[in-house]
């Protein structure tokens, strides 16, 4: 009898030690991003016919909300087979997005500051936490300012931008300008059916200077060096200018296109 009691007590002790019960009212961790001004770009390769994409997008936005909406930007790049429009599904395909997607065969896929993208790999949404936190902790190398001038009647958009080095840097430096439209309503497959009024966030509409952007005049820059860029475009008549943004980033092609800094500015 004594042996049985001891055995049962030992079993209960092992079972107790083997289980951690989390308080359901306290499942979220407080998180404070490390200091600094480095911004981070998450590219979300998605598709309107991808059933798992809305959930992944929610996760990325939750990440943005929790870690800092002023320091994390999300670009929803519709690319791949599940983004190819059929029937009433919206057409958000772009040549540049297809080039970035680089023949991957599934959605959703992610890159964080282009890490694990240009070498042929991508991240699943569950894998982006640590790269985002790591990227936020990196030192800032550049500062980007964007000034948009939009003419309502002609729908012409003029973009003036400055890229300023905040530290000495050597690499193969490029700057890219992308048009983003937020809050587009359309058809999206969701688990268990179809959402005909799904709100697509931060939809990539194309670039103003090509899939790879354009090179900075110098690959070896020194602190305070400043480079100016101007671009113009006419907004497609179907785009809602009130919800459009210019997203800009500086990347280093000597590091597989790693993005060094990102900025975003409303068109209006």
């Amino acid at each position, binding site marked *: 009898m004594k042996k049985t009691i001891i055995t049962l007590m030992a079993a209960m002790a092992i079972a107790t030690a083997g289980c951690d019960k989390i308080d359901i009212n306290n*499942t979220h961790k407080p998180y404070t991003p490390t200091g600094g001004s480095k911004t981070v770009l998450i590219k979300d390769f998605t598709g309107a016919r991808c059933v798992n994409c809305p959930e992944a997008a929610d996760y990325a936005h939750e990440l943005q909300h929790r870690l800092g909406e002023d320091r994390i930007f999300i670009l929803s790049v519709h690319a791949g087979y599940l983004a190819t429009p059929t029937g009433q599904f919206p057409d958000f395909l772009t040549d540049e997005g297809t080039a970035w997607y680089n023949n991957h065969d599934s959605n959703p896929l992610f890159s964080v500051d282009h890490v694990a993208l240009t070498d042929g790999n991508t991240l699943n949404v569950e894998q982006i936490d640590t790269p985002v936190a790591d990227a936020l902790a990196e030192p800032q190398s550049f500062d980007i300012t964007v000034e948009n001038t939009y003419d309502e009647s002609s729908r012409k958009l003029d973009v003036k931008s400055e890229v300023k080095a905040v530290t000495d840097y050597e690499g193969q430096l490029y700057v890219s300008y992308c048009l983003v439209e937020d809050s587009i309503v359309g058809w999206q497959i969701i688990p268990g059916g179809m959402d005909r009024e799904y709100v697509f966030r931060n939809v990539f509409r194309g670039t103003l200077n090509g899939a790879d952007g354009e090179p900075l005049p110098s690959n070896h820059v020194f602190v305070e060096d400043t480079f100016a860029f101007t671009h113009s475009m006419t907004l497609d008549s179907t785009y809602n200018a009130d919800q459009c943004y210019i997203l800009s980033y500086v990347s280093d092609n000597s590091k597989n296109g790693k993005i060094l800094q990102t900025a975003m500015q409303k068109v209006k």
Partner: protein
Amino acid sequence: MQKHILLVTVLALIGFGASAQSFLENSQVNGSFQTDAQYYMLDKGIDITDLNGKKFGINGFGKVNYTNGNFSAGIRFEAFLPEMNGFRSELNGVGLANFYATYDNGFIGVTVGDIYDQFGSGLVFRTYEEWSLGMDNALRGARVVLRPTNGVTIKGVYGRQRFFWAPYLEREMSADDYRGIVRGADAEWDLNQSIPSMNDSKFRMSLGGSFVSKKQADQSLFYYIPENVGAAAARLNLGYGNWAFSTEYAYKINDPSAINNFIYKEGQALMASLSYSQKGFGAVLQVKRTDNMSFKSMYTGKQNDLDINFIPPINYTHTHSLPSMYTYSTQPNGEMAAQLQVNYTIPKGTALGGKYGTKLAFNMSQVNDIVRDSIMDNGQMVINKKGSLGYASDFFAISKHRFFRDINFEIDKRINKDWHVNAQYINLYYDIETIEGHAGAPVVQANIGFVDVTYKINKKQSLRLELQGLWENEVHKGYEVEESEKKDYQKRGDWAAALLEYTISPHWSFSIADKWNYGNPVEEYRDHYFTGTVTYIHDATRVMLSGGRQSEGVVCVGGVCRTVPASSGVTLTVSTSF
């Protein structure tokens, strides 16, 4: 860890005092080797216009086991150079995949190295290796088995699971292959063995219980992840005469993971089986309910790896090519399933039984989703929201969402000493969107049938003919498939298949086969998949060479599946055992 295990193995050998000579004198050695190699070719006919730089795929293994009295040891070497198409790319590599050493004197058994074991039906713990899936979730560590008295077995296991070629040492938490430690215990009591008066009783009874826990560090930035997740199970087996009943219930504590969308709901599973058998008749009824029972040693994992437990499927396993095209894959987040299997042999000497008897079999299995209701979370009604309890689910409620149904009837008849016929009809419902992830693709509803006839030409030679057909009830009849939807329609629609096999016993077999997707809604997919195969068998050695096309599909074993892409080329399989 690896060095430690090797050291323990060597010490064990020395400790048991086995001199080199006696160690060899009473020993037994057995093992097996297998190599599967594929040479891939371009084939515009089935849309293979790019091999992506991969002309060859070779999977191979060799294992050797040594036994001497109470001691046994073994190794398993594997090579994937590179892995064949359809296998996980992480397999690419070569090396010693598994090793073990065991001492077992009947009272105590100790194993160090890679452990394959199962508690009960596996609902809380099962490690196994399945070559055809490229799957191996062995636990590298230690196991102790105690048998203190007749009919009582107590087991304890401890270790870290295999994850392709990832190191077993403690890893950085940020490493992609970071996974936790698994520890578990199981006890089983067979009353018929323990209690002398029950030794020969018609009434049979055994009880069992298990507890398994994984320890994985919390890597999440956002959620408090339980570092110790425990799962427990209790089981009961009863029998009386021709009747047998078994059941097992499992419970898992909060285990937020990528599979369940980081919800904190507990997991539950219940399985039960009732069977009756007598000469010429057998029937089995099985039911199963699982809810949030995926249990992995890496909570961020989403694929078929690092599973600590196993959810047994209760579906008929088809072996012919067309019926097995749509095999059910267990849904880890929850399912309600039932299966009835009835076998009856019409006796010899009756009008329908003839000289040899006639075997009849009926099987029906169906799997539906569980019901998930919204719950209140921070003042809002939510369902499956991250960081919440997820949902509420009535234990006995069945969702209208049907994943799978298979109703089949089989007849197996030896007509005379030369002719043997086997035929089966299958009515299938297969939710391809849920099971294979083809978003928006229509459900497969099909009638499938085959006839398999063997004619014995003489004592050494025989001919076997298979004729199969698959007819889908609805595949967007009359609907013109748009260009972008085509990928979802590969393998869809009606099929016909035939195989002719000529066997010269005991060594040779030759076969030619064709599968024709003649009813595919997409005209360019109405392809033939020809294959020719030559097999040579010598004792325990088998060499098989085949050439031709392989259609896209899934290979499933025990409800666990991998996707096989379409290919064209030559396949060589060589296997032997000793």
